């Protein structure tokens, strides 16, 4: 269809849709959307709902006064970045007419179409967007729980724990040893633990050249593995006797069963490991509110991929890490992309028309050294018959193994530009 005809076509299809009797909603002049969670999914949905239809009243409920980005937070560990540089207030969204309320949500009441906060205040909605991110399965490793994580940090939500981990690495002895315990699939930020090892090595290379970083992994392979191993080899001697980074997968006994926090000792399947600094990234599931609001099936929230509406409760849309949106990874870019699809679907529903066909992208960068970046990308479409988001064949994929030094260097600068644009696109 030519661009010239598109506008007329939309008018016509709208007209036809109405006459065919698509669900028309009895809505007030200003339909209300309540968003639970001020991360990438929730913020992007808020911004794009207002952008697509400024008549929609959007309320964002988020306990924290400011957002701290997890993406790029591994750079705190190399010392390249501060927590402040990852922290942004919600004024940008307020300027776009989003009502931001800093209260913790206690319940989503699907039958009453309202969200209740800890303060007891109900927020009525015509559509509710839930984007709570991930929560941890604390019972997976014996001896490791929320209170122990104050000392043996997970640092998987950027915040005070990221800074604690950084300080522990800075104050460990010259030839100190760091252990990263990687989580099983699926989890938020698949390349994160391996970028983290490189970022710690980046610091140690200059300040503690005899330090060692060991990754214990319950998996046999991991995201961007070939590129990580190549980068680790080039920068940190991976694969040699003198490697700064070592990786032990499931087959090698990398699955950790127990922690003794007092001696910083890990019991893995085959042997024990002791370290100066331990970082445990626990197995993951959807955020708490998804469980208490009956939005989960197993660990994650099933959704209709055309709209991201929950298949368990009508009028509730679940986005980002908490949703079961395989084959998309649990990443910031994926949540941003999904939020726009959900926003367009909600706007269409308020108009009484069919949801538009969705399209998705994921891009994700990892920084292994000052001048060494790698990426993965995918373009997705929806296979409606199987309700599966499917990567388009022949597109996407990893940075090439034979990329030039110049390209690796440019990918670092693209990663930093990606960060700025993603933050801007979600909340400014």
């Amino acid at each position, binding site marked *: 269809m030519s661009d010239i*005809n598109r506008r007329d076509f939309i008018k016509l299809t709208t007209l036809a849709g109405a006459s065919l009797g698509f669900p028309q909603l009895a809505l007030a002049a200003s339909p209300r959307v309540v968003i639970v969670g001020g991360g990438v999914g929730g913020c992007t949905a808020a911004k794009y709902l207002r952008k697509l239809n400024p008549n929609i009243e959007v309320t964002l409920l988020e306990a924290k006064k400011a957002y701290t980005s997890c993406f790029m937070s591994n750079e705190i560990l190399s010392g390249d970045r501060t927590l402040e540089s990852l922290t942004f207030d919600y004024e940008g969204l307020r300027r776009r007419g989003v009502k931001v309320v800093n209260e913790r949500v206690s319940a989503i009441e699907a039958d009453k179409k309202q969200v209740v906060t800890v303060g007891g205040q109900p927020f009525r909605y015509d559509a509710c967007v839930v984007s709570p991110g991930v929560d941890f399965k604390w019972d997976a490793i014996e001896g490791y729980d929320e209170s122990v994580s104050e000392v043996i940090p997970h640092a998987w939500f950027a915040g005070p724990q990221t800074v604690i981990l950084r300080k522990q690495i800075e104050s460990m002895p010259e030839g100190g040893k760091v252990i990263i315990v990687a989580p099983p699939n699926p989890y938020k930020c698949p390349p994160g633990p391996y970028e983290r090892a490189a970022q710690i090595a980046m610091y140690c290379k200059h300040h503690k050249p005899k330090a060692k970083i060991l990754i214990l992994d319950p998996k046999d392979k991991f995201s961007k593995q070939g590129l990580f191993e190549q980068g680790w080899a080039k920068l940190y001697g991976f694969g040699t006797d003198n490697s700064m980074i070592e990786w032990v997968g499931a087959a090698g006994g990398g699955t950790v069963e127990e922690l003794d926090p007092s001696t910083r000792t890990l019991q893995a399947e085959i042997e024990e490991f002791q370290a100066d600094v331990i970082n445990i990234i626990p197995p993951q599931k959807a955020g708490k509110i998804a469980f208490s609001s009956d939005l989960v099936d197993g660990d994650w929230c099933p959704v209709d991929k055309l709209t991201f509406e929950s298949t368990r409760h009508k009028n509730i849309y679940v986005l980002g890490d908490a949703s079961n949106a395989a084959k998309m990874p649990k990443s910031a870019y994926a949540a941003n992309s999904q939020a726009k699809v959900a926003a367009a679907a909600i706007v269409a529903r308020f108009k009484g028309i069919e949801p538009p*066909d969705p399209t998705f*992208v994921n*891009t994700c960068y990892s920084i292994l050294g000052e001048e060494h970046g790698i990426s993965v990308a995918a373009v997705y479409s929806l296979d409606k018959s199987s309700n599966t988001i499917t990567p388009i064949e022949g597109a996407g994929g990893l940075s090439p193994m034979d990329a030039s030094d110049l390209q690796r260097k440019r*990918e670092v600068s*693209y990663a930093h*530009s990606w960060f700025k644009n993603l933050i801007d*696109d979600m909340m*400014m």
Partner: protein
Amino acid sequence: MNNKIRNLLLGMVVLIPLNLLAEPSGQALAYTCAGCHGTDGSSKGPSSPSIAAMDPDVFIDAMQAYKLDERNATIMNRIAKGYNDKQIKSMAWFFAKQPLNATAQKHDAELAKLGAQLHDKYCEKCHEDGGKPGDAGTLAGQWMPYMNNTMEDFISGHRNYPRKMQRKVDAAIKAEGDRAIPALLHYYGSQHGFSGQEKDHE
């Protein structure tokens, strides 16, 4: 649109389930670019170019070149392969209609002044109106680090260097030496506060 076509279309729409006809709109496709190129194509990241207000043919040429691995890319070659010609065209027109909100960049006023002179002498003929969005690509308000990468690619042979452009750039370098390209970049980077989008192409 004349009435006959209108009625035909209306008939089709009633008869055929919508989801068979539908495919992602230019807007929906373009929204997925924002994480790297900024909301509606106005980039906030110095290495990612703004693509708002971009001439649609320049956009289409760039995407096709990436698709065919004809342009030095890190990631765009992988992404461009995800779209068919029609989708690329609809994205091109979406971006063409967006205002370019260029971010003010730190620049050296003296260099920019020299750059303005060089631009008038060597570049203005193709990159009209000080390099504002047009059929030779956007330079005014574009990110300087991005343009620096692009010039590196032209000069090192990593990107197809139009002969006419090469002659002009060589002449500018002959006149001002190593200062020529930085001067031009500082001139383009010094410009912001215009929109440049296609208002109406119907």
